[in-house]
């Protein structure tokens, strides 16, 4: 088990990223077949899966990294992109396009990422292949009392120039913040 000061990535159990890519691809393909190519349903299922994963993943993240409460949304996004994505997917997305009030920004995923590497999707504008990530982010942030809107705006699988997620802070759930933090 890791001690304080240990390198986080060194202590992580690793698997081949292709195995992960293939497993995720298999699930999405089957969902498309099951729902007869109604891609909105597929997106919703992926989002639900992600949400369930996110509410548990946050404990894994906090226990392995020892991150503390962030003082601003900018800091939160920084921790998510520099640590969160690195620890779980071994990628580091870029952050850009901050709004003037500092409450929303875009996360640009690097190409390729472990979910959609070597994937081709059927010609449609409705499927967001990596929708599971939106669910994961929303679920994880809900558990630390942040209400956010997360959606995809661009996807390279659809022919866009980059894969971009828009993240917007709605509100901080002050009532649910645990006692004992100042």
């Amino acid at each position, binding site marked *: 088990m890791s001690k*304080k000061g240990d390198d986080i990535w060194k202590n992580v159990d690793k698997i081949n990223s292709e195995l992960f890519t293939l497993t995720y691809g298999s699930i999405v393909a089957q969902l498309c077949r099951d729902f007869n190519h109604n891609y909105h349903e597929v997106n919703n299922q992926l989002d639900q899966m992600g949400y369930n994963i996110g509410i548990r993943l946050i404990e894994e993240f906090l226990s392995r990294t*020892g991150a*503390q*409460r*962030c003082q601003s949304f900018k800091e939160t996004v920084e921790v998510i992109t520099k*640590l969160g994505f690195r620890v779980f997917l071994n990628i580091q997305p870029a952050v850009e396009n901050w709004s003037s009030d500092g409450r929303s920004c875009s996360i640009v995923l690097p190409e390729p990422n472990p979910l959609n590497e070597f994937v081709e999707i059927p010609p449609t504008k409705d499927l967001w292949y990596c929708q599971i990530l939106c669910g994961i982010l929303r679920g994880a942030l809900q558990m630390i009392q942040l209400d956010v809107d997360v959606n995809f705006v661009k996807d390279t699988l659809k022919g866009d120039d980059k894969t971009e997620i828009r993240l917007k802070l709605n509100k901080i759930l002050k009532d*649910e913040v645990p*006692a004992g933090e*100042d």
Partner: protein
Amino acid sequence: MKLYSIYILNKAGGLIYQNNLDPSLNRLTANDYLVLAGTLHGVHAIAAKLTPTIVGKDSTSTTSGTDPTANNALLLSTGKVQNSNTNKTGLGSIETDLFNLYVFQSLTGIKFILITSPNPILQKQHEQASETFRHLYVLYSDYVMKDPFYSLDMPIKSQLFDLKVGELAALV
């Protein structure tokens, strides 16, 4: 430092796990444990209101853990594990002649409470408790979160988790 028992409370203050690691301890009834947990949750919150305001945010003024921004900055720059105890103004520890009690709270509101043997050398025991909490949090994330039969905020009934907690206690 000898571990006497461990309590885990969910964010509503309900007891979800209790384990007497020292077999010589008297067992209370299940109801007593629930009442005890609820009381601790309440006292912890009240203490947060009673604590004098911490002047400024320098890391020297807090007892458990460091300033959050500095912690996160250190975490990002070095990539090394830090301490994630968010318990700043709530009840941190109780020291008596017969036992010591330590409280660790995560960002998600889960509280881990350790009851240990008393020890006059306080600082060392604080660090040991800190280490133990870190390992306990990792065990919680591994064997409870990754249990597909576990429902969030419900009592933990996993034998594997019991086993691992026992092993951790033996190591302390």
